C-alpha cells in the first residue's frame, strides 16, 4: 500500500467536489443563497406591509404622541442622525491617531502588545456595560447629564476599539516598501505616512470605520441604560439637548400593549434600515472611487 499523501488527498477532493459541482452541490449552494435572500426580503416586505400606513411624510416629520396614528418619528430620526455624525467625529480622529501610534510610534513593543490585547477585549464587552460606564463617567462625574453629548461620548467609546483595530489593519496592509520609497526621497516619516500610507489605506479605514459606527448607532441597550426615553417632544438643536433615537423609539413602540403601535415600530425599523443602507452604500462608493484612483 502506498503511504498516505496529503497532496494526493487534496487533488482527489478537488476532483470530487468539481464533479459534484457540475451536478448537485452548486445547485444546493445556489438554493441556500436564494433562500436566505428571499427570507430577508420577505421580512423586509412584511415590515413594509405592516408599516405601510405610517410610511409617509407625516410620520417622518411628526412628533411623538400618545395616539399611535398621530405619533411621528422626527425627534428620533434627528437624534440618530446627530449621533451618527457626532460618533464619527468623536471616534474617528482619536481612533486613527491611536492606530497610527500603535503601528508607527516609538512606544515599547511590550506595552503595544498589552494595549492590543486590551483592545480586543474591550471590543468584546457587552454594550450594556458601556451604557453603565457612560452613565457614570459622562452623565454623572462629568456632569453632562443625559444629553446628546454624553450619548455620543458613550457610543464613541464603544466604537473606539473596533475603529482602532480596523484602522491598524488597513495601515498594516500597505506594504512597508511604499514608505521606504517616500523616505528615501527625503520625506520625513510623518510626510511618508500622511502622503503615501494613509491615502493608500483610506478605503479600508473608511469602510471599516463606517461599519463599526453604524453598528454602534443601531444599538438601543447602552442608551436605554444611559437614560434615553422615547417620549421627547422636540428634535435636538444642540449637543447639550435631551434626545431620543430610532432604536430606542422602536424598542418603546414595540413594547406598547396597544397593537396600534406595531405599524409605527415597523415603519421606524424600515427608516432605520434605510439610513444604515444609505450609509453603507456611501462607504462603498467612497471605497470604489478611491480604488479607481489608486488601484489597490
Amino acid at each position, binding site marked *: 500500500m502506498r503511504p498516505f499523501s496529503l497532496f494526493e488527498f487534496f487533488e482527489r477532493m478537488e476532483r470530487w467536489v468539481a464533479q459534484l459541482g457540475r451536478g448537485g452541490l452548486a445547485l444546493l449552494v445556489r438554493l441556500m443563497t436564494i433562500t436566505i435572500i428571499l427570507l430577508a426580503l420577505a421580512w423586509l416586505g412584511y415590515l413594509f406591509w405592516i408599516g405601510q400606513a405610517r410610511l409617509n411624510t407625516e410620520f417622518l416629520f411628526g412628533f411623538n404622541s400618545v395616539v399611535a396614528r398621530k405619533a411621528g418619528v422626527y425627534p428620533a430620526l434627528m437624534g440618530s442622525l446627530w449621533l451618527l455624525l457626532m460618533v464619527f467625529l468623536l471616534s474617528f480622529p482619536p481612533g486613527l491617531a491611536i492606530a497610527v501610534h500603535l503601528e508607527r510610534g516609538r512606544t515599547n*513593543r511590550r506595552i503595544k502588545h498589552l494595549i492590543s490585547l486590551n483592545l480586543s477585549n474591550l471590543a468584546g464587552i457587552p454594550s450594556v456595560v458601556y451604557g453603565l460606564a457612560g452613565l457614570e463617567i459622562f452623565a454623572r462625574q462629568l456632569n453632562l447629564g443625559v444629553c446628546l453629548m454624553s450619548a455620543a461620548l458613550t457610543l464613541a467609546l464603544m466604537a473606539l476599539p473596533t475603529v482602532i483595530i480596523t484602522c491598524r489593519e488597513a495601515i498594516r496592509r500597505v*506594504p512597508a*516598501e*511604499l*514608505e*521606504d*520609497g*517616500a*523616505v*528615501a*526621497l*527625503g*520625506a*520625513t*516619516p510623518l*510626510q511618508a505616512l500622511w*502622503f*503615501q500610507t494613509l*491615502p*493608500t489605506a483610506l478605503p479600508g479605514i473608511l469602510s471599516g470605520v463606517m461599519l463599526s459606527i453604524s453598528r454602534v448607532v443601531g444599538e438601543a441597550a447602552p442608551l436605554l441604560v444611559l437614560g434615553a426615553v422615547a417620549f421627547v417632544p422636540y428634535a435636538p438643536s444642540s449637543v447639550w439637548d435631551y434626545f431620543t433615537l430610532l432604536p430606542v423609539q422602536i424598542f418603546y413602540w414595540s413594547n406598547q400593549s396597544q397593537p396600534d403601535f406595531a405599524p409605527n415600530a415597523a415603519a421606524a425599523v424600515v427608516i432605520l434600515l434605510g439610513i444604515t443602507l444609505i450609509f453603507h452604500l456611501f462607504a462603498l462608493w467612497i471605497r470604489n472611487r478611491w480604488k479607481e*484612483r*489608486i*488601484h*489597490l
Partner: protein
Amino acid sequence: MDPQPLERTNPPLGEKISVSEVNAWYGAQQVLFDLSMGIRTCAVTAIIGPSGCGKTTLLRLMNRLNDRVPGARMTGLIRMDGRDINGPDVHVAELRKRVGMVFQKPNPFPGSIFDNVTFGLKIRGMVMRSFLNERVERTLRQVHLWDEVKDKLKSSALNLSGGQQQRLCLARALAVEPTVLLMDEPASSLDPINTARIEELILQLRAQHTIVIVTHNMQQAGRTSDVTAFLHKGRLIELADTATFFTNPKSPSTQDYITGRFRL
C-alpha cells in the same frame, strides 16, 4: 527654478563616501563584518556578490534607511563629504534628499505616474506646475519611458509593467537631482534594449553624480563601473578599478565568482 549645475566639492578622484570598519546586524544576526571602502566622487562603483551577502544592507546604511528597520543596528563610521552621517548634527531627511535610491524591487507609489515623479519635488516645496511638467518630461525621457507613458501621465503607476515601474522609480529618484545615487539592481526586470539604455544613462550621470550600483550581471558591472567591489558573506573580498578587477583579480574567490565557478 532651474536646476543648478552641481558643483564638484571634491576633486574627481576624491571620496564622496567613506565606509570604515562597519559591522551591521539584524537582531542577533550579523550581516556585515568590518567593512571598509571608499566610494569615489563622480564615478560608478559596482557592488557584486552572491545573494544574501549584504549588498542591499550596505546601500541602506548609506542613506540610513536601516534606521527604520526594527532590530537593525550598526557600528563603525560612514562619512559623506567628510561628515559622519550618523552624527548628531545630521538631519536624516536632508541626508536622504541628497542620496537618492532605486530599490531592488520596484516600489512605485499608488498614485499617478505624474505624482510619482513629482513627489520628491513637492516635499522640497517645488510646486510650480510648469516646472513640474518640464521636470517630469525631462526625467521620463532620461529613463526612456516618456514615449510609453506620455499619454497616460494621470493614470496609476501600478498599471505599468515591472520594467516600466523600474524605470519610473529611477525617474523618481533622478527628478530631485541627488548628488549620490544608490541603485539596487536597477535593470533586473528590463529587456536588453532598455538595459543598454539605462547603462548608457548611468555613464552619462557619472559626470555629475556619485553612483553605487548593485548588480548580479558581471558584464553590466564591467560596462558601467569605474570601480568594482566584491562582497561575500558580509565581508569585502576585493575592491579595485573595474578593468583590473575583471582582468586580474587578486583573490581566488573573486576569480571563481566572476568566472561562474563559484562555490558557496
